[in-house]
């Protein structure tokens, strides 16, 4: 339990840090983007005094002392008030509610797939070490691990999307036939549109799991208890899975948690290449429009999602590692 409590404290501090960074970055940036922004909004007109005041709080353009501003900012957040988009006056919380499910589904499914396939490949390659697969797969996966996600995505769009025309490569579903809802047609369309982005994320992230699992698996295979299990005449399958892989997977789960942020970053770029209607696409549109409320709101929600996923990985670790579970707090 002590382990978990420490982790939860860490996540709370991280959450506080990201909120505070969100608060500080516009205020500390040189050239005062907030003032310039407010002046621009004012010139264009169409801002009610209340909206103007909300913006001033958000960007520190008021004359209040900084701590008061901070209090107002946090209280706005606690009321789920993330501000309104500059681009189309849509509340940021609506943008998040609309786009988050796309990213969660896409990244969630492809992350689990790539973790499972990568881990199994790592186990296999470590077990049959010295076979052709090891000498071919290792360099190939090292190369894969260094490919920029978005470049691989571009190549897929070009090859499978435009040239061969096998799969749709633009958007999240067939916008001309379906509208988002609980219909089977929409679901299949969305699944079809998700194949290429998911493939990008799987291929882009699989090498890390595979190489990590291979290395810990090899280290575990030389442990005495594995030798003992072999000496007892247990079946190869049993030795491989319940003796070696079972223990080797623990460090891989830690690295799974740690590289979540990296995968999320990669999937943001992937979404942009495919014009996928998720968080990453919205984030970059926000950047292009200098739509600061959207940028900040999306950064917060991405952080929360990554922290939650980290917490889930911690839970999995506790379940899988009896030593942590048995630790007295």
């Amino acid at each position, binding site marked *: 339990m002590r382990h978990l409590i420490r982790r939860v404290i860490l996540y709370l501090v*991280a959450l506080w840090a990201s909120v505070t960074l969100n608060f500080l970055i516009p205020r500390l940036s040189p050239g005062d983007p907030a003032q310039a922004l407010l002046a621009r909004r004012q010139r264009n007109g169409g801002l009610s005094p209340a909206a103007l005041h909300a913006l001033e709080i958000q960007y520190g353009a008021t004359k209040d002392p900084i701590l008061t501003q901070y209090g107002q900012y946090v209280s706005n957040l606690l009321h789920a008030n993330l501000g309104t988009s500059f681009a189309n006056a849509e509340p940021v919380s609506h943008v998040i509610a609309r786009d988050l499910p796309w990213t969660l589904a896409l990244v969630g499914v492809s992350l689990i797939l790539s973790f499972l396939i990568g881990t199994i490949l790592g186990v296999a390659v470590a077990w049959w070490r*010295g076979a052709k697969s090891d000498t071919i797969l290792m360099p190939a996966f090292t190369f894969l691990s260094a*490919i*920029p996600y978005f470049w691989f995505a571009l190549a897929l769009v070009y090859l499978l999307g435009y040239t061969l025309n096998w799969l749709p490569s633009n958007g999240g579903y067939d916008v001309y036939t379906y509208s988002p809802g609980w219909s089977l047609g929409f679901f299949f369309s969305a699944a079809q549109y998700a194949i290429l982005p998911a493939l990008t994320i799987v291929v882009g992230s699989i090498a890390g799991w595979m190489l990590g699992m291979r290395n810990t698996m090899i280290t575990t295979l030389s442990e005495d208890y594995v030798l003992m299990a072999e000496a007892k005449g247990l079946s190869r399958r049993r030795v491989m899975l319940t003796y070696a892989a079972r223990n080797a997977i623990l460090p891989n789960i830690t690295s799974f948690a740690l590289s979540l*942020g990296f995968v999320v970053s990669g999937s*943001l770029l992937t979404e942009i290449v495919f014009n996928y209607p998720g968080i990453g696409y919205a984030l970059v549109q926000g950047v292009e429009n200098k739509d600061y409320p959207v940028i900040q709101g999306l*950064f917060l929600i991405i952080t929360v999602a990554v922290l939650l996923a980290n917490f889930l990985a911690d839970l999995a670790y506790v379940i899988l590692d009896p030593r942590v579970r048995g630790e007295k707090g």
Partner: protein
Amino acid sequence: MSITTATREVASDQHAGARLRRMLTANGKVTFGLAVVLFFALVALVGPLFVSSNANAFGPDIGVGPSAAHPLGTTSYGQDVLAQVIVGARVSVALGFITGFIATAIAVIVGLVSGYYGGWIDETLSMFSNVFLVLPALPLAIVLASFLPYKGPLTIGFVLTITGWSWGARVLRSQTLSLRNREFVTAAKATGEPGWRIIFFEIFPSEISVVVAQLLGTIIYVILAEAGLEFLGLGDLNSVSWGAMLYWAGNNDALLLGWWWWFVPPGFCIAILGAGLAFVNFGIDEIANPRLRTIKSGRAKTARKVVAP
């Protein structure tokens, strides 16, 4: 200088040369990776001397495929892609290495200080680096880069330093934790060496291989993330770099037009350079931990059990 010392020096030079050569060739992965990295470093250093002075200059041939005049074709502005790739190597390689060094330096200081002193210093610094570790780096980099008014290598370097040091700090901290109670550290303490000297002259040299591994990993991260930020249009779009090339290719429908020669080379270079660095890293891993080596012949099972020295 007497003859004997001169010969001895030559002999030791040869010895050092042989040792260096053996070190570089002992592991195929390291050799291959170093060759790739050196190649790109050379291209970055002298390559721009061989291509036209301004790789961004517009030309008359618009969007033509690879030919004798333009080995990698041209962009929709008539720029020569090969020239851009060569000039762009400079930004990517230089930024990657400089930022990688700075971020790793921070990681070394934080990791070693935190691991050596322990106590509240360790608690504070660990919390700090763990927070940066769980905060998603690229979104944070996007937020930072979108607020900073100046767009260019300095901004990107700054953003990637902030987001790139924490992993190394964590690894080096745990390495230092395992070293700080060894005899040589205790001996140094007993002779009254100050803390900073123990950290940087006793502990640091003995974990240099871990530092190098972190450095390489950080450089890979920086090169990939830099390309990503530039691809999003957050870099200096008037300068020539691999990421900016991909940005312009994407924004000018190179995919739709089928101009593969515009977007394939820069990404391929990023991947090859990254893979080269990763190979060096895996090679170092294998030298440090012989069990990880790929076995060329013989049955895997007999070689699996390695007796510790």
